[in-house]
């Protein structure tokens, strides 16, 4: 997996808030189809790093490469344009609207001439496309015209993640997940885990930020641990164990 160009590569990232060094010379990369678990205690800098990747924060120093091309993000929109999508903890779905509308919002298919002049939306195409996209991801939730507010928490999270996935699929792309199962029960977590694995199989690079160690251990190919703004570990899951990871997180174990 390491021979190919990384989908996203950050080198020597520093970010200062006044005197505080939130990130201190962090290198990070993720390959297409790879799931990287990004771990760390509260305040270790993992959310900050995620925000740098998603374009919400600009690093003080350091370079960002997407598929080998050096880039600079000024807004999350710039990151989205090169195929990096962030899925937020609070879902960001429109409750009263159905699954299809939520999936296609911002890229709604229009009907043919002359209806497209006034912007008539092709509802059938919208539902068809949504169903196709979800089945390509192997997702089965509910009928496409079911309002999101009538879905379970797990189904909602699946819709939110799928939306990000279909938006980056064409470009290979990177998905950034922030605590994707924080509010979910056991079965619902299974549902989301399954989707994450399927997305990686489709060649999407995935960065998974979580406090949930077992989740990270289940899914990640590689684990990156931050402590006080520095990277203290970057290791394939098969070459380490949970105790070491906990050691790195708490700072009990020395940086690699």
């Amino acid at each position: 997996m390491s021979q190919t160009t990384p989908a996203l590569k950050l080198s020597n990232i520093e970010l200062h808030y006044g005197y505080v060094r939130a990130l201190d010379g962090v290198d990070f990369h993720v390959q297409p189809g790879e799931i990287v678990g990004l771990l760390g205690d509260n305040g270790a800098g993992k959310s900050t790093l995620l925000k740098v990747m998603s374009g919400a924060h600009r690093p003080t120093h350091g370079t960002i490469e997407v598929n080998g091309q050096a880039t600079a993000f000024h807004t999350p929109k710039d990151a989205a344009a090169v195929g990096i999508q962030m899925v937020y903890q609070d879902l960001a779905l429109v409750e009263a609207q159905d699954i299809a509308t939520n999936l296609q919002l911002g890229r709604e298919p229009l009907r043919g001439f002359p209806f497209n002049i006034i912007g008539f939306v092709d509802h059938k195409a919208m539902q068809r496309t949504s169903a196709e996209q979800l089945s390509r991801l192997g997702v089965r939730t509910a009928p496409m015209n079911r309002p999101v507010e009538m879905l379970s928490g797990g189904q909602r999270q699946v819709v939110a993640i799928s939306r990000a996935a279909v938006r980056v699929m064409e470009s290979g792309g990177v998905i950034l997940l922030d605590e994707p199962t924080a509010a979910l029960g056991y079965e619902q977590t299974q549902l989301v885990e399954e989707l994450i694995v399927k997305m990686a199989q489709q060649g999407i690079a995935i960065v998974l930020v979580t406090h949930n160690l077992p989740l990270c251990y289940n899914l990640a190919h590689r684990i990156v641990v931050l402590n006080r703004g520095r990277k203290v570990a970057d290791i394939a899951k098969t070459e380490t164990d949970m105790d070491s990871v906990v050691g790195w997180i708490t700072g009990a174990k020395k940086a690699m």
Partner: protein
Amino acid sequence: MSHSPVDRQDAVGGGKRTTDRGIETSHLPFNIRALVFVRERGIIVLWLLLLLFFAIWDHPYFASVANGLLILQAAALTAVYAAGVGIGAISGALDLSVPGVAALAGVVTGKLITLGQPVWLALLAGLLIGVVAGLVNGFITLRGLNPLVVTIGTLSVMSGLAAVVSGGYTIPGLDELTFMGTARYFGIPVHVYLVALLYVVGTVFLTKTRDGIRLVAVGGNPEAVRRLGINSPRYQLLGFVITGCCSALAGLMTAALVTEASPQASPASIFQALTAVALAGVSLGGGRGSLPKVLVGAIILATIGDGLTIAGVQPYWATVTTGVLMITALVIDRLLTQIISDRLVEVGSMSTHVKDGKG
């Protein structure tokens, strides 16, 4: 749980039983389907019951074409105000400056006509007042201020300006406007045509067009829509402009009906409109609501007024009845939402998280 296989035809929902919001309910248990039906269509049932009730009570004067047209004529102005307030509420912009905008639009048009300007120009200027008022309300609200407070402020400004323009007096003798006031075409009052046109265009816009769908989505969750790369503030602004235009149109129709333009803003219009909107189950929190039901709401108000008047009941009782009806409708809607939500949880795999204030 949600692994329950859903076959493809089901997933696209072709030819399945749906409610007017297009909710697919076909494989839900019957009792839930019935509850959803009552919640979605209850207002229409209520209106039919009212018609039946008054048809019997006021026999033989109520159930006639002439009286039907009278009801529609009486509902027209409220319906126009309610369309503006309704679309505004759906897009997340509750606008109370409506009566002020209507008064200012009326007197500006009236003034221009008495100054000898062409009628079309005067009407255009009146509608433009609505656009400007919407933009002002929108820009100030987008600065992060509470729309209620902002629009109460602009209500004052607009009605004050209306008095300034007219010198404080009603502008009389606007006979040029009867073509959109008391006129009838093919026996039907012109206001009925205007309302029909407004609601058809509005409904098609909200449900079929890209901008309309985004407008509703922005009302539901502006932040979510913004994150998808859509310019949310532009749509929030659009909501205010639509409300402003409807208010101005209502002001012009009022002036045309009485052939004079009063600078007096009538607060009753906004409360009637809000009642119709609330009866229609439009969430004042934004993001949900159906325009045709708002129209039914406005017609219900007119039906009650008309029915009670024919029966010889003091008109004050119409106001009391409307208030009681509205509160009852809100309570029933909240109860039904809760029950449906609970039932869905029992059925498993689904839940409706009822957000506070979104009932």
